[in-house]
C-alpha cells in the first residue's frame, strides 16, 4: 500500500461520511438550525427593544441590588462605554449568543445533573465524557458543527452549548449529593414523599452549587463565543476575528474591552444571585 496516498484516502473517507450524514440528516439539521437561530433571533430582538441606556440602566439597578451601589454604577457606565465605542450592536449580539447558549446548556445540563446526582450508573458514564469535553481544545467543537450546519450563529451556538454544559452537569450532580444526612433523616421522619424530599430538602441545599454551575457555564460560554467568531457567530467575536485579520488593532482592542466588560458584569451578577439566598 502506498503510504503517501493514505492521508488523501482518509480525507475522502471523512468527506464521504460527513456528506452522507448531512444528506441523510438534512431535514434534522435544518430543523435544529432553525430552532437555534430562531431562539437566538428572539433573544437578540428582545435585547434590542431597549436603547443602550435602557439596558445599561437595568444592569446598573441589578448590580446595585445584588452586589452594591459602586458596582451598579460601574456596570452602567461600563455598558455605556461599549455603546460609545460604537460596538453596541455587536455587544448585544454577543450577549444574545451567550444567553441563548447558556440557557440551552442549562436546560439540558441541570436535569442531566439532577439525574446523575441520583443515579450512580449515569454518573459513572457521564464523568469520562465530561472529562473529555473539558480536556479537548474548545474550537474542536466548531468543526463537526460547521460541517453539518454551515457558517453562522447556529454553529457557534452548538459548539458553545457543548462547552458550557459540563460545569452545569457536574455542579448540579454534586449539589444533589451534598444534602447533609440529618436533613434526609428529618425528611424521612416527617413523612415526606420522594418529590417533597427533592423539592423541599435536596434542591434548596443544592442551590448554591447549582448557581455556581450556572455561573461557570456562563463563563465557559463567553470564552467560546469569541472563538466562534471564526464561524460567523456575529457579535464581538466576529468583530475581533475580522479586525485582527485586517490588522485593525484599534477595533479589535475596543471589541476585547467590550467583551471584558460584558463578562465581568454578568459574572458578578450571577455570582451574587447565587449567594443572595435568604440563608
Amino acid at each position: 500500500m502506498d503510504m503517501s496516498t493514505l492521508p488523501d484516502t482518509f480525507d475522502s473517507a471523512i468527506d464521504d461520511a460527513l456528506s452522507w450524514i448531512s444528506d441523510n440528516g438534512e431535514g434534522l439539521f435544518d430543523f435544529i438550525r432553525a430552532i437555534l437561530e430562531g431562539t437566538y433571533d428572539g433573544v437578540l430582538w428582545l435585547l434590542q427593544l431597549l436603547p443602550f441606556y435602557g439596558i445599561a440602566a437595568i444592569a446598573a439597578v441589578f448590580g446595585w441590588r445584588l452586589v452594591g451601589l459602586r458596582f451598579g454604577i460601574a456596570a452602567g457606565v461600563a455598558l455605556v462605554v461599549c455603546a460609545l465605542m460604537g460596538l453596541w450592536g455587536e455587544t448585544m449580539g454577543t450577549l444574545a449568543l451567550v444567553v441563548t447558549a447558556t440557557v440551552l446548556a442549562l436546560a439540558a445540563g441541570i436535569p442531566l445533573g439532577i439525574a446523575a446526582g441520583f443515579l450512580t450508573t449515569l454518573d459513572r458514564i457521564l464523568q469520562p465524557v465530561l472529562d473529555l469535553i473539558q480536556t479537548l481544545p474548545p474550537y474542536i467543537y466548531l468543526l463537526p458543527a460547521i460541517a453539518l450546519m454551515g457558517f453562522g450563529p447556529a454553529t457557534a451556538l452548538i459548539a458553545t452549548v457543548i462547552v458550557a454544559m459540563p460545569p452545569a452537569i457536574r455542579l448540579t450532580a454534586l449539589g444533589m449529593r451534598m444534602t447533609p444526612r440529618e436533613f434526609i433523616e428529618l425528611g424521612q421522619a416527617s413523612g415526606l414523599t420522594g418529590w417533597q424530599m427533592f423539592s423541599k430538602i435536596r434542591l434548596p441545599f443544592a442551590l448554591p452549587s447549582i448557581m455556581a454551575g450556572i455561573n461557570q457555564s456562563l463563563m465557559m460560554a463567553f470564552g467560546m463565543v469569541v472563538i466562534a467568531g471564526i464561524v460567523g457567530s456575529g457579535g464581538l467575536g466576529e468583530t475581533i476575528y475580522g479586525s485582527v485579520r485586517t490588522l485593525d488593532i484599534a477595533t479589535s482592542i475596543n471589541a476585547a474591552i467590550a467583551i471584558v466588560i460584558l463578562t465581568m458584569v454578568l459574572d458578578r451578577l450571577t455570582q451574587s444571585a447565587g449567594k443572595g439566598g435568604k440563608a
Partner: protein
Amino acid sequence: MNIAHKDVSEILVDCRSVWKIFGTRAAAAIEAVETRGLSKKDILKEFNCVVGVSDANLQVRRGEIFCIMGLSGSGKSTLIRLLNRLIEPSLGTVMVKGKDVASLDAAALRDMRARNIGMVFQSVALLPYRTVLENAAFGLEVRGVAKDERNKVARAALDKVGLSDWTERYPSELSGGMQQRVGLARALAADPEIILMDEPFSALDPLIRRQLQDEFRQLTKSLGKSAVFITHDLEEAIRIGDRIAIMKDGVIVQIGNAEEIVTKPADDYVADFVAGISRIHLVKAHSIMQPVAAYRGDINALPRAAPEADISALIELTMQSEHDAIAVVDNGAVIGVVTTRDLLRGVAA
C-alpha cells in the same frame, strides 16, 4: 388536648423481641441468633456484624415519658429509629397504636410519621433557608395544610416554647437552646401522639439544659403526649422520665421508674450509673419504712407522712419534731414507721 376520656394504660408503642444487626451478613447472623442464641461478641467475631439492638422489649403507654439511657454506642439511636421504621428491624415486631409497622406500605408509613410519631434530633436539623415559623410549620406543610392554617398552628406551637417573638428570624440567629425549642415546636405543631427525642439536649449548656428538661416535661404532660426520650445522662432521665430503660451493648438491662433503678440496680453497670445520683428526692417512705410492730414508742404521738413522701420531706419533718420517727399513713391507717436510722440508710445505701 383533653386526655380525660383516654385510657392511660393504652399501650402506644410495643417493641417485642426486636433485634437490629448491621453488616453485609446480617441475615446469616440473625439465623445464628435464632438457632444458636449467639452473643454480641460471637456475632462480631463470626459474622463481622455489629449488633445495634439485641432482643429489646419495651412498652410505652399513653401519656408516658419513657427514657432510654445508656453510654454512647449502646444502641439508643438505633432502638428509637426502629420505632418509626427509619431502621428496619432484623427480627421482632414493633407495634405502634396496635399496628405492626413492618406491615405498612410506603404511603401508610409516611402517614404514620407525618401524623402519629414526631421526631426531634440532637442535631436539631432546622432548615437554614427557612424562617423559624416556616421551620415550625414544616410538618404541616408536607401534609398539605393551607398556609394560613399551618402558620397559625406553628405560631401557637412556638408560643408554647416561648419563641413567639422570633418567628421571622432564621435558625442561624438563634442560640442552641432556642434552636432546640424550635425543633420541639416543629414536632408539636404536627400534633403527633408520640414524640421521639434522640438526645435533644445533650449539646446544650447545663443551665439551659435543666430549664429545657423541666419545660419539656411540663409541656408533654400538659398536652397529654407520649414521648420516648434518649439521653446518656441518668440525672436527665430521672428528671424527665416516668420510666427509664437502661441499655448496654444493645441490650435493655433494666426498665423501671427512677426509684426502682436507683434503689435496686439490676447489675454493676446500672449500679455504677446510680452511684452518683442523690437519693433524697427518689427514695420514698414506703420503701424504707419498718413494720409498725418494730417500733417500741407511742405511734400515735409521731408526726405523719404519706407513703409517697420522699426522704427530703421526711428529713424536714424529723427536724421539726422532737420524736425520732415518723408514722407512714395510708388511707388513715398507720402502715409503717420510718426512724432516723432508716432515713440515714435510705440516703446512704
